[in-house]
């Protein structure tokens, strides 16, 4: 997305967010004054070594944890100012969250797990199931609808967890290593779904340690010791190859 096309309002805004765990000598600065905006249509990948604060960043963005300083805004709403009930509603309606360990409810089938947030939002059970089946279809696992988490492989559970995060018209999708349990081509198809969701206007942020997966993002941000140290924007497609081709044409006859 080019600068002039960026709408004024980010879907996610981390406004100088810090998070400190522990006290005194045991104090650990997980995040230090991180400023980050994610705009509609944008997929942002977060990379960094373990312990750099990637997961903390994601849990704060999803309202699962509270910053020690700074604030988190989702669609302009400061999460810190909401009471528990309102926060839960924002999380349910606006935020899809893919947990690293999936967090599926063992007593519910895949379709029920996916439909649950919609039903909690007042959608009828029948309509919610229909949406859940469509989400399963989108991820290529329609046949898992009536299976329980215990009867699924890690990779299957991961895709169900992603379907649950994508259901409804959520504006913000947060994903912690969403391809961790998937083989190379399945992981790629999941990223393609996420990419398509962003191309359709959603905003997403995913934590990954795999550069090949981060490369699906519009922007890659690098975390070190709780700080954002660098970021890349996507260039125009093919620019490198086109340049290489032009250069090779110039130095004729090797």
């Amino acid at each position, binding site marked *: 997305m080019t600068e002039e096309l960026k709408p004024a309002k980010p879907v996610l805004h981390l406004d100088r967010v810090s998070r400190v765990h522990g006290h005194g000598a045991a104090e*650990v600065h997980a995040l230090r004054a991180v400023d980050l905006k994610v705009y509609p249509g944008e997929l942002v990948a977060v990379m960094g*070594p373990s312990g750099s604060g990637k997961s903390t960043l994601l849990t704060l963005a999803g309202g699962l944890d509270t910053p020690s300083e700074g604030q988190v805004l989702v669609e302009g709403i400061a999460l810190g100012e909401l009471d528990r009930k309102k926060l839960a509603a924002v999380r349910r309606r606006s935020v899809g969250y893919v947990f690293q360990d999936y967090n599926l409810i063992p007593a519910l089938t895949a379709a029920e797990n996916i439909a649950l947030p919609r039903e909690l939002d007042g959608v009828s059970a029948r309509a919610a199931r229909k949406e859940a089946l469509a989400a399963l279809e989108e991820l290529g696992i329609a046949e898992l609808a009536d299976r329980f988490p215990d009867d699924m492989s890690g990779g299957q559970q991961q895709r169900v967890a992603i379907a649950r995060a994508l259901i409804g018209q959520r504006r913000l999708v947060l994903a912690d290593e969403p391809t961790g349990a998937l083989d190379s081509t399945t992981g790629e198809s999941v990223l393609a779904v996420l990419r398509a969701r962003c191309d359709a206007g959603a905003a997403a942020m995913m934590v990954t340690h*795999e*550069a*090949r997966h*981060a490369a699906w993002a519009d922007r890659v941000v*690098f975390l070190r010791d709780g700080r954002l140290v660098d970021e890349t924007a996507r260039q125009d497609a093919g620019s490198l190859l086109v340049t*290489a081709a032009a250069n*090779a044409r110039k130095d004729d006859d090797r």
Partner: protein
Amino acid sequence: MSIRHGLLALLDQGPRYGYQLRSEFEARTGATWPLNVGQVYTTLGRLERDGLVESAGEDDEGHQFYAVTDEGRSELRRWFDTPVPRTNPPRDELAIKLAMAVTVPGVDVAAVVQGQRRHSMKALQDYTRLKGRALAADTGTGGDLAWLLVLEQLIFQTEAEIRWLDHCESRLGQHAERQAAAAAEPVAAPPARRAVKSRDRGRL
């Protein structure tokens, strides 16, 4: 790079002339290894000298056609049947640069690593976008598949470089910690408390 064998493989499908060979080579490999026509004709000349191709006449427009000989066909077969040698690794400028950077005083090695990682990540984003397009345009013809495989080779190679850079960074960190520990306590091993703490931080 084996332009020789690439041209033999194309000629194996029937006689062709220089420009044709160039555009077919590039269609299969994208603009990844662009050829100029001079290169094509020089290579054809050598292949002819070695008896692997022969002249196959001209068309009305004066295009000089070439055809593969039996000897050329067996050379091509031999190429497909033999692994590409991994001995004598190609010279890698980045590896040389880092090897120099860690030994030359006053070079900010971490900055070299991060600068390269940013650059390579951008390249990887570009390749991935091209791949998305290639996948969308896949009509099931062999040419699309060839280009996709070449692109994916670039993707995996760039990914490997970025992973190696990540590793360099943690190797540098470890080295710095050891140096600091050695400076503080010349004989003793690094204190155990430190190890526990860094393990805990890894869980955050």
